[in-house]
């Protein structure tokens, strides 16, 4: 049986609670970023760019079998925006392949509660907030479609 969205949140919460050193959080995000598979270049259309991110972040949704599957990638020009990619990958660890109603049930302040925002630059905080907003927006749209 697949993990529920609540179990996923608890897993992430426990992971963050286990960080003893401030660098542990960054290392975790770097690992997530390195493990995260990018997306097919053909999917990188302008309409999928998250507005409000300093880096160019793409979020492509696919609604199949009552669940939303997200593809995410970040481009930073000459730089390698590992933290931004790690943040995106972290969001997907909770929201990917979940039903719209499950996504909408997640408290938007969850990431603040676990301390993700501590030490995060305002630009990245804003970018992450924009990503979450977009995920919730897709969830609302697909929720409405599935109820028709």
């Amino acid at each position, binding site marked *: 049986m697949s993990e529920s969205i609540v179990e996923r949140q608890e897993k992430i919460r426990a992971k963050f609670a286990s960080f003893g050193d401030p660098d542990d959080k960054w290392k975790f995000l770097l690992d997530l970023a390195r493990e995260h598979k990018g997306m097919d270049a053909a999917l990188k259309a302008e309409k999928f760019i998250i507005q409000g991110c*300093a880096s160019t972040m793409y979020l492509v949704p696919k609604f199949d079998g009552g669940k939303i599957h997200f593809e995410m990638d970040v481009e930073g020009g*000459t*730089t390698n925006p*590992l*933290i931004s990619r790690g943040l995106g990958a972290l969001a997907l660890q909770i929201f990917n392949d979940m039903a719209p109603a499950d996504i909408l049930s997640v408290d938007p302040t969850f990431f603040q509660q676990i301390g993700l925002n501590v*030490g995060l*630059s305002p*630009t990245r905080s804003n970018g992450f907030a924009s990503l979450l907003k977009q995920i919730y927006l897709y969830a609302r749209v697909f929720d409405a479609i599935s109820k028709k």
Partner: protein
Amino acid sequence: MFSFLNGKSPFDEAEEKLEAGETVNGRPKLPQAPIMGWQDGVFLLVLIGLIVGGYYYYQHTKQVSAETFAKCDSLYVAAETNAAKYVEAESCYNETWELSFVSDSMEILRQNRLGSIEDLRNHQKDLYADAMGALAARDSIAAYNIVNNYKGPMLLNRGDAKDWNNIANSEAIKASIAAAAARADSIAKAKAVADSLAQVAAELRAKAVADSIEQANKKASKRKRKKV
């Protein structure tokens, strides 16, 4: 391959055979089993070369990375007291993308510092947008003040930086600010004069009131005395 099965080295064996006069075509008979073929020797040498070379290359890349990051670090620290250094620190960290070796702690530092500089840039971009908005609303003094109150580094792109500097150094705006200041000064002076006149008038009024009260009191006391 090595052959020590009879307890002797192949070199010792060959020497013994040479001493014993064993020859082939007039030459001393070579040992039957050499230590290794020349191909094996070359392979072994190449392998050792690769390992040693790889190790030194790895040490060298580590050293280069450590030196580059130390340089960027000193620029970033210097930028905390001299904001202009942020541009140099950013460009230094951007050069580190070419490095072959970057440890996790270096990566965290690089990501966080470039993120901080990006925040500063976004802050200046916001101020730039406010200044351009003020200019569009024909409030050049507000635009001038926004730009000149900013004490951070110049992190805008070339075009925006040019606009920014034009506002900051505009003689026309400076002249209108000076004129506005002069106007404000004359208004303040006029107000001071008016205030002092008002003060004098108020004092005169108060004195008049006091005088009339005093006169009324005197009259009242005269009447009292007459009655008595």
